[in-house]
């Protein structure tokens, strides 16, 4: 049940040493791009401030966000933050089930009206009156609207909640939509990615707890500290891109030497995420480092942007599958042929006119 413990108390109860706690604070400050002095402020906040209740709802999703979250590189982050969340509500992780579990939602809504954070993993389908996603016998859409109505802010975990992801991909049979299409009156922090990076998830929560405000967001509602730059901007293979050194096929010399994956359809240049800096699995690697291009999983509608392995992607804009170059070259060729034909016709026409004029002059003379 929801308590008013501080983070620090919860951590100590879990057997985490003070030294470990301070390490967590320093790491979080570094992850958030803050000056070293802020580690102290984070520690102070965690020691003194009552924990903010977080309700974590699951709509149409695959639980990869939760899977990522519980694998946070720094075990403390997941232990501490997750223990707090599981205490309140997270139907895939908490011990409680059935009516007891659902009762927690009502309790938090009334006891902490306007003071709890709603985290949403997945999204609501609007088709068939929302019947494609049922939680506790009711459409998820209803649950989401209810719990959102009294919250302080909403965190949209992952690409599902942020943009719609695979369930909203063409032709979207259940009419799944991102949560900002159904929640209009609350601040929404989008943390896209399929899944988002664990350290990014814990970092966002730690920031909100420490500073009691939302992190600075970009135009699309994503925290600037993690989504301010593209994968491409901080990619360790960027020098090969600037040099013009590309992998041309998966087994060529360039692939072995770690050249740029641009020609293999890497979406690093169009994808805003922290993969190339924070990396994955305790900072071990990220897709490009293991030799595969970025799929652009944190970008809007990335499932519908053509082939994962093309740079100039196919488009369905004009009702056909063709890329701009194929159509462009065909159009230029056709127009070129038309110009040649027209030029020939013009020449013939002019010769005829000339001889016609000559005849008239001759007749007049």
């Amino acid at each position, binding site marked *: 049940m929801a308590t008013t413990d501080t983070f620090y108390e919860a951590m100590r109860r879990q057997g985490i040493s003070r030294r470990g706690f301070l390490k967590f604070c320093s790491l979080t400050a570094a992850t958030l791009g803050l000056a070293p002095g802020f580690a102290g402020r984070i520690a102070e906040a965690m020691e003194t401030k009552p924990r903010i209740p977080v309700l974590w709802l699951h709509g149409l999703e695959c639980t990869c966000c939760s899977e990522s979250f519980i694998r946070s590189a720094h075990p403390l982050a997941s232990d501490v933050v997750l223990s707090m969340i599981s205490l309140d509500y997270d139907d895939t992780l908490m011990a409680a089930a059935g009516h007891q579990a659902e009762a927690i939602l009502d309790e938090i809504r009334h006891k902490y009206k306007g003071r709890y954070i709603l985290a949403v993993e997945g999204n609501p389908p609007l088709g068939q009156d929302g019947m494609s996603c049922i939680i506790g016998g009711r459409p998820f859409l209803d649950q989401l609207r209810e719990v959102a109505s009294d919250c302080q802010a909403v965190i949209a975990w992952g690409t599902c909640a942020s943009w719609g992801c695979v369930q909203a991909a063409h032709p979207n049979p259940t009419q799944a939509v991102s949560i900002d299409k159904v929640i209009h009156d609350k601040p929404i922090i989008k943390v896209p990615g399929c899944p988002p990076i664990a350290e990014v998830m814990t970092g966002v929560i730690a920031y909100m707890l420490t500073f009691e405000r939302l992190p600075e967001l*970009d*135009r*699309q509602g994503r925290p*600037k500290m993690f989504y*301010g*730059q*593209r994968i491409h*901007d901080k990619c360790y293979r960027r*020098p*090969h*891109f*600037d*040099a*013009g*050194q*590309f*992998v*041309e096929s998966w087994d060529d*010399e*360039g692939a072995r030497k770690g*050249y740029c994956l*641009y*020609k293999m359809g890497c*979406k690093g*240049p*169009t*994808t*805003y995420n922290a993969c190339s800096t924070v990396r994955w699995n305790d900072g071990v690697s990220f897709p490009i480092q293991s030799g595969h291009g970025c799929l*652009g999983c944190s*970008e*809007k*509608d*990335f499932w519908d*942007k053509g082939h994962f392995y093309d*740079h*100039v*992607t196919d*488009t369905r*804009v004009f009702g056909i599958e063709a890329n*701009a*170059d194929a*159509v*462009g070259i065909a*159009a*230029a060729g056709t*127009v*070129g042929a038309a*110009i040649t034909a*027209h*030029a020939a*016709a*013009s020449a013939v*026409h*002019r010769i005829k*006119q000339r001889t016609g004029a000559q005849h008239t002059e001759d007749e007049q003379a």
Partner: protein
Amino acid sequence: MYTGVPTVKRTAVYVYQTPVRIWHWVNALAITVLAITGYLIGSPLPSLSGEASDHYLMGNIRFLHFAAGYVFLVGFLFRLYWAVVGNRYSHQLFTLPFWRRAFWRELVHELRWYAFLEPEPRKYVGHNPLAHLFMVVIITVGGLVMMVTGFALYSEQTGPGSWQDTLFGWVIPAVGQSQDVRMWHHWGMWVIVVFVMLHVYTAIREDIMSRQSLISTMVSGWRMFKDDRP
């Protein structure tokens, strides 16, 4: 029967002022560089081998593209200014007499001339209606689309807070995402390439077959008429 020096008199009008002519040729060069480098950014040249520090090919190609983009932008802004202070033909590029019936009637006439259905075209000091329509749609509207999408993509590297991001960054979410903006920018290139082909062809053809000069006009500024009939 020709005797000595030909003494045919021709009427000429000064139509394209010097700044307009300079702008035309600078713009033509910028568009050429933009199209070639733009294509090579989308489909880079074959990979170079060796160390990354030995080359800067992609970097140079991109630099040329961005530099030419700035030239295009500054040229466009200057041309907009000149439309205000220049002569009466200088604002044709930014205005279309959409509601004037005669414009559309003459446009049909011009189309019929190209389809060999009219014996001769009409005379125009400025653009003929067909050319006028194409100029406004491709150079003004098309140019704006290319500049807005281009600088939106450019803002991705100058980053949040840069003037490019402040002015053009909104385009990316408005269109969808970065990949969509790239796609439209790429389509725009092909539209302009096709336009350039038509533009060069019709300029040469009109210079020979119409009743007025075209190519020399964009060099000297003087429009010469081959006859004095209306």
